[in-house]
Structure formats: C-alpha cells, structure tokens
C-alpha cells in the first residue's frame, strides 16, 4: 500500500533523457533523503532528551557518554541537518537556473520556497536544544536578528516569552522542532511532489 501510494506521488511516465543525473542531480530527492535521516535519528534522540533547562544539557551528556552509539546518533542528526539545508539551497538554485519555476509550475515553486523557509526555521529551533554555550548564544543572537525584521518583535515574544533557554521558551522550541515544523515540512513535501506530478514530470514539459 505504501509503495502504491509513493508511486502515485510521481508521474506515470518520464522522458528518458530527463533521467540523466546531470539534469537535476537528484538534489530534491537527496534533500528528502536527508530529511528522512533527520526523522529517524531525531526520533531515537527523543528517547533520551529532556526538554527542561536544568536537564537538557545533562541528558545530552548522558547520551554521549553512556548510551551505545549515542555520540554517533547526535553526529548523524546534526550532519543530516546541515546536509538537508545545503541540498535545499542547491535544489532551489538548480530550479532557477533551469527555468523550472516558470508557469505552469508557480504553485510548485511557492510551496518549495515555503519548504525552504520551514527548513531554516526547523534547523533554528533545533539549535537551542543541547543548551550548551554554542546553542544558547546562537539562539539568542538569532532572536536579536529576528527583532530587526518587520513583525520580528512580536514573533520573538511568541517564541521566547520568558527569555532564551528558560523553561517555557525551551519547551516551545522543542514542540516546534519535534512535532509542528516537521509535520509542516512533511505536508508541504507531499504537496510539492503532488504538484510535480500534476504539472507532468520532472521538468517542463513532459
């Protein structure tokens, strides 16, 4: 059933010449692969991470020093996150340079830009969770950056009502990072794949 569903997300037929690796470099597919790795490694991290200011850092220490493969699991999650963002940027670049964003694919493009925005936000919300010096100050700087943008002050008040790294803020970042934003990325990804099928193929025009 899952296999049949996956098949229906993609076009039934494709041009053979569009299957050349150098045509798309599989960048979108590779980005989704990294997202898949993020989900798997992230779910495993959930078994150890404790989203409270006084326990978060210790739970990471426990994971890295006591749990078999814990250090590797965290490295994989971090690396997949970097890979995901880089591949998303490169995929967007490829789409622009090949003109694949032009009508009738404008909705696919808008969904893709939304995916990029959510992906950056997902990475940002994950940055704070280890609660080490790097996490804390990078997140705090990010919040100061946000406040310089129109409407940023309001958004900052929503995200960090009690200050960066305090209990309510950490809980909000955690909920956004592990549930809300990933669900958004998943939903937009399927909509993106559906639009690719709807507009017939990998690139204009099948």
């Amino acid at each position, binding site marked *: 059933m899952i296999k049949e569903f996956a098949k229906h997300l993609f076009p039934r037929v494709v041009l053979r010449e569009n299957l050349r690796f150098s045509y798309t470099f599989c960048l979108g597919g590779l980005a989704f*692969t990294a997202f898949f790795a993020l989900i798997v490694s992230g779910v495993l991290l959930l078994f150890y991470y404790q989203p409270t200011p006084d326990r978060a850092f210790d739970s990471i220490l426990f994971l890295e020093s006591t749990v078999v493969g814990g250090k590797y699991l965290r*490295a*994989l999650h971090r690396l997949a996150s970097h890979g995901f963002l880089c591949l998303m940027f490169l995929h967007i670049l490829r789409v622009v340079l090949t003109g694949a964003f032009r009508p009738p694919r404008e909705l696919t493009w808008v969904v893709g830009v939304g995916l990029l925005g959510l992906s950056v936000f997902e990475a940002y919300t994950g940055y704070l969770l280890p609660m080490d010096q*790097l996490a804390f100050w990078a997140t705090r700087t990010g919040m100061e950056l946000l406040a310089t943008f129109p409407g940023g002050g309001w958004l900052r008040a929503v995200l960090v009502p009690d200050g960066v790294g305090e209990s309510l803020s950490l809980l909000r970042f955690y909920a956004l990072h592990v549930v809300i934003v990933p669900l958004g990325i998943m939903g937009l990804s399927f909509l993106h794949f559906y639009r690719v099928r709807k507009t017939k193929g990998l690139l204009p025009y099948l």
Partner: protein
Amino acid sequence: MREPMHCGEPERDLRRGPRGGGEYVRSSPYFFRPVKRAFAAGLLLLALLALVVPAPLLAPANPAAPPNPAKSAWFLLWTQEVVSHGNGFAWGIVALSLWFLLMPWLGRHRPERAVWFGEGNRASSWLTLGAFAVIVALTVLAMVFRGENWSLVWPF
C-alpha cells in the same frame, strides 16, 4: 525488465525539444530506480560522514558568559552580517525574499523546455547566482573573518 513505453500524443512536442529523442519510459522502474539509488547513496554518505564528523558540545549554557563575538547559527550568519551594518538593511533581505517568492510572475518568459541557462531565463539565473554568491561570501566572512567586537580579522 519492462520495455520502454512510447506515448503517441507527445510526438509533436518532442520534435520541438532542444535535444530531440524524446523516448518516454515508465516511471516504474526507470525513474524509481535512480530515485532509490540516490536515496541509498545519500543515506550511506551521511552515515559514513557522521563517523568522522562529531557534533560539538561546549560548556553548559551560561547567560553571564557571552562569547565575543556572539554569532548566530551558520545558516543565519549572512543576515547577521547584513544587519550588523544597520537594522534598515533587514528590508533588503525582505525585498530579496519577496523577489524570490514572486519570481514566476516576473517577466513574460514561458520556457518550452527546461534547460540550464535557457534563453529568456538568463536575467533570473544571473541575479540568483549573484545573490547566492553574496550569501556564501557573507557567510564565510562572518564565519571566519569576524573577531572580537565584530571587527574584521585575519584568521590565518
């Protein structure tokens, strides 16, 4: 293995294609095979790289001990670099984001087929490449060449 499939109707379109040929094949297995290979190769590469690139963990968060300079996450460093010259520059980033979002509706170009640096898409291509180059350059600048009090330093 299934035989390649030819669809009758698109023949007219294919003659107009820049590369000709135009043989249609079923997605299963011809399209899904490279997708599966890319998926496996991507996972394998990440799994191997994670063996040699550990995730850093510094001292516990201490609001009383700010680093100098305090830098944002690497993917936001370029925005930090931009607004470090004045908060008003944030509007430039907003304008750039809007331009990207609305790009399909800017210009009248309707490509027959997607091709790298296709005719009619050159302005968008070069503008985007330029924006990406600036973003990467600002990221490297902020990551490597920014020292105490956000001053420019030579790290080597």
